[in-house]
């Protein structure tokens, strides 16, 4: 155990002496937090619509006006036929084409349920689904308005047969403020990733310069070496988390409904887990380049499958299971639950459990694969 103290002391001296490391661990995350939290938004704004009005009736014009009036849409063109409209889509000048058939008004007042067609540019899937959803909403509300205005035209609806109305309230994030939703996740992501990369690089660097050989020729225990790397970087990770939480509070005023102590308690387990992973990588890399490549391979998978950008619930079943060994997914889930929902320990016990098991697995593997002898 005494040896461990010297290992940790040495690591801290090196960390504080490294001019680039501390700014990198504090300033860069804040910059990333600001940029990503604002930019990584799922909100759909400014959908460009082209209306092909083959009817040119009062009703079809009312529909166009309604679309123009909505600030999510901008009516960019009114081509005369569908082909022209599709050409515009091909040139990426419109996102949605709405085609109004020639007998639209006539059919509508006859009660024949006319068919409107929307063509959506689904290259941007988000824009497509959300945008066409908004558009259907507009059409539906126009429909309702006219029927309400002229009930005599729709005798079958004259009786007070109100449709069922669903009102939705967004709990935990009532204004659908994206930074509130994104910032806790990005914070978790940054903390985990920076620590994975830093430990992997740090240990491989010792291999490159040859000091690891000098360590290997001492009677040091393998677990002592691994712990000697783990503890300093755990502290660094917690520092990063603290800085990030303060920054998120000051900049985005993110809610902190739950117990911050719980976040830190979980973060310690999670950091031990990802640090073990970083050390595991370092055991198989001869050079820092190799370590970076391997780390990035996993980091990309971790980030894209952690629920930050794509909700885990909307992934296919196999992919949902694949997020179980992803420490990042648990970290993001915990930080969102605790900060936004105010969840307690009982609500995040599964995340705790999975991360704890992963931490043991990764660190055991790291100790086991660390070779003092070739």
């Amino acid at each position: 155990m005494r040896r461990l103290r010297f290992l940790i002391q040495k690591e801290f001296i090196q960390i504080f002496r490294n001019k680039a490391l501390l700014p990198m661990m504090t300033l860069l995350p804040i910059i990333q937090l600001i940029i990503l939290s604002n930019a990584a938004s799922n909100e759909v704004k400014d959908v460009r619509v082209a209306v092909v009005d083959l009817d040119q009736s009062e009703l079809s014009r009312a529909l166009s006006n309604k679309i123009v009036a909505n600030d999510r849409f901008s009516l960019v063109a009114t081509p005369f036929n569908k082909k022209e409209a599709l050409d515009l889509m091909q040139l990426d000048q419109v996102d949605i084409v709405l085609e109004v058939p020639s007998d639209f008004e006539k059919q509508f007042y006859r009660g024949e349920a006319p068919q409107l067609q929307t063509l959506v540019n689904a290259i941007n899937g988000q824009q497509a689904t959300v945008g066409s959803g908004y558009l259907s909403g507009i059409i539906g509300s126009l429909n309702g308005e006219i029927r309400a205005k002229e009930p005599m035209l729709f005798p079958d609806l004259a009786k007070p047969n109100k449709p069922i109305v669903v009102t939705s309230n967004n709990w935990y994030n009532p204004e659908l403020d994206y930074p509130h939703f994104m910032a806790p996740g990005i914070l978790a992501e940054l903390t985990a990733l920076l620590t994975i990369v830093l430990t992997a690089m740090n240990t491989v660097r010792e291999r490159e310069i040859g000091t690891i050989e000098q360590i290997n020729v001492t009677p040091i225990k393998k677990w002592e070496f691994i712990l000697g790397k783990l503890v300093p970087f755990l502290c660094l990770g917690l520092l990063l988390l603290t800085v990030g939480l303060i920054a998120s509070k000051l900049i985005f005023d993110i809610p902190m409904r739950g117990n911050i102590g719980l976040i830190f308690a979980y973060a310690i387990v999670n950091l031990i887990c990802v640090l073990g992973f970083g050390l595991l990588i370092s055991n198989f890399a001869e050079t820092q380049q190799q370590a970076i490549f391997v780390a990035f391979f996993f980091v990309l998978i971790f980030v894209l499958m952690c629920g930050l950008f794509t909700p885990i619930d909307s992934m296919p079943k196999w992919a949902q299971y694949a997020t179980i060994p992803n420490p990042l997914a648990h970290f993001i889930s915990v930080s969102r639950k605790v900060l936004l929902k105010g969840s307690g320990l009982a609500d995040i016990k599964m995340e705790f459990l999975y991360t704890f098991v992963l931490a043991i697995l990764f660190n055991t593997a790291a100790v086991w694969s660390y070779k003092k002898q070739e």
Partner: protein
Amino acid sequence: MSETKVIEVAGLTKKFGDFKAVDNISFEVEKGEIFGFLGANGAGKTTAMRMLTGLSKPSSGKGKVAGFDVLKESERIKERIGYMSQKFSLYEDLTVKENIRFYGGIYGLSRQQIQTKTSHILEELNLDQVGTKLVKSLPLGWKQRLAFAVSMVHEPEIVFLDEPTGGVDPMVRRQFWEAIYQAAELGRTIFVTTHYMDEAEYCDRISIMVAGKIKALDSPDKLKDQFEAGSMDEVFLKLAR
């Protein structure tokens, strides 16, 4: 086993695939001896040394270092030996004192012992003025002598030096060998690899490795007689052809 033999090796072999880097070598080293390990680059010196220090697992053969089995007790061996590798192995971003403290701590020295050792080493090497300077700011010769001193911080029975004088000027090499003699006088066994033939003359006994095998092993004078050569240079050239 004799009390005075600190290294005993029989049939030690290291294979990398089909290539035998070290091919069935056997020798013994006496306590307090300066044992030189000579050979061209790639002759297998470093590999042999790495097996003795427990950094590399022998493919076959057996050996004892400081009374412990190289196959089964490499961690016990590590407590008893010092090692200075070819690559410079102190932390450049730590100061001289911090390096001594770190390695002292790793070898389990007490705070008190570390302090005594530190002042002893600084005095010995005339490094008093630079004790708090980063190691990277020192000239190479000083670094090498410091690395040697640090490799003996825990007072090991045997010190393994892998080409310790590579790239330093003749003045420093001379100082370095004086330090080696001092260590040997304290009863420490020195196992040193080199490809400088003049350095070979300083050793009590030398072995010359060619292509993984030991081709000659004796004192420098006897080897010169045996090969009818005027200098170790000639002996070496005759062997290597």
